[in-house]
């Protein structure tokens, strides 16, 4: 039993390495801040229509029952707990990106919130200004020089890129908590992230509604939001070239 699992793990890892190598080779094109690389737009728009109907039929009505602006203390507790569980994975990626200060800040945050924050339900670290530093494997791949790849909209998960979608899969495989968890705990953690998603949908109801239902082309808006936000986060701020001079056009 044990050795079979070991073999399975090794096969998975080998497959991952192969996949990464393939994708790194496939998307070796330069990234410009305002460029949009969307060769799969037709399929992406179909997925977007699916995600939109999912939001319309399920997520939005369910979130609507929570009332506007989230559920308050209960919702905050769930968000805090889910975000705390995601920290070990972020720390692994901070280290893989050689962002040692981020890794230390996240480690301190994790220990504080897990102990003084009652297992992560409260966020005393945040109250002291020690907020979560982002870290995911998509970001690690970017730090290692992999190009962003084509834009993707994933069913259920929403906007992504080839690099970030791959990163998401690797994150699931290398998450220290995930590998420690029994199947039942893993199911619990999945349920938790679904609840957190509903909580977010209710908390940011105005923004999401305006993006999805009030804009002329919600697909194009979601794509722009995702790419600009992600690029700035990965390059840690806006570069001079990202900031156009509006008087130059006229």
């Amino acid at each position, binding site marked *: 039993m044990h050795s079979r699992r070991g073999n399975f793990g090794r096969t998975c890892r080998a497959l991952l390495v192969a996949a990464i190598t393939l994708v790194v080779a496939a998307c070796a094109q330069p990234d410009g801040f305002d460029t949009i690389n969307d060769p799969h737009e037709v399929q992406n728009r179909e997925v977007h229509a699916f995600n939109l109907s999912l939001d319309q039929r399920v997520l939005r009505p369910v979130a609507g029952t929570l009332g506007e602006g989230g559920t308050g203390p209960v919702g905050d507790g769930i968000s805090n707990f889910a975000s705390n569980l995601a920290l070990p994975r972020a720390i692994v990626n901070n280290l893989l990106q050689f962002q040692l200060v981020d890794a230390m800040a996240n480690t301190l945050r994790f220990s504080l919130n897990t102990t003084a924050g009652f297992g992560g339900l409260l966020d005393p670290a*945040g109250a002291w200004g020690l*907020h979560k530093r982002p870290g995911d494997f998509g970001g690690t791949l970017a730090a290692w020089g992999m190009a962003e790849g084509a834009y993707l909209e994933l069913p259920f998960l929403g906007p992504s890129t080839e690099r970030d979608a791959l990163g998401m899969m690797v994150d699931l495989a290398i998450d220290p908590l995930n590998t420690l968890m029994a199947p039942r705990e893993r199911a619990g953690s999945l349920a938790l992230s679904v609840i957190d998603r509903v909580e977010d949908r209710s908390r940011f109801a105005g923004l999401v509604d305006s993006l999805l239902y009030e804009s002329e082309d919600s697909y*194009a808006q979601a794509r*722009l939001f995702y790419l600009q936000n992600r690029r*700035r986060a990965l390059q840690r701020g806006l570069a*001079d070239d990202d*900031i156009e001079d509006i008087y130059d*056009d006229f």
Partner: protein
Amino acid sequence: MISETNLDRRSLVATATAFALGAFLWPGRARAMTVGEARALIQRLVDEINSVIASGRPEAQMLREFEAILVRHGDMPAIARSVLGAEGWNGASAAQQRAYIEAFSGYLARKYGRRFREFIGAEIRVTNTREVSAGVLIGSVANLRGRAPFEVEWLVSDRSGRPRMVNLFIEGINMLATERTEVRAMLDNRRGNIEQLITDLRGRG
């Protein structure tokens, strides 16, 4: 002895003044806005937004006040023009251009005003400044309950003749690029009919 010092001082002042005047009058060199001036502009803008949010007035009134703030501190004609693009702008009559700027300003104030109102509740704080080739970028932070604070960056340019806000980035999301995508999609879906665009912008945001 005393008169000699005075003379020295006088000639020193004269030389300094001549240099200052020379720098000021040097052809082709307009006096550039200082980082401090750009920061003061955004500080005023942010203070005004904060006080409108804190006033607790009805939403419709708040949105009108946001529009006044935008028009006061932002270069709305330049923003509106840049969003529409050269083709749409040049194809419009002067009256249409004016109507479009006005409709777009209202739309922008309603859209972003609503977000500011529901998102912030706390306060926006100016944190840092940076010179970039397009002007001065002012960083600010908005606090959200139970979340990491989010960053809003404001671009100030004085190419219109005086310092004005010309763009903002909310966690990297560029307002100008967002609205360009939106307004040009609207114009395309109306087969380039600017009158229809103006009418519909008045009802949006």
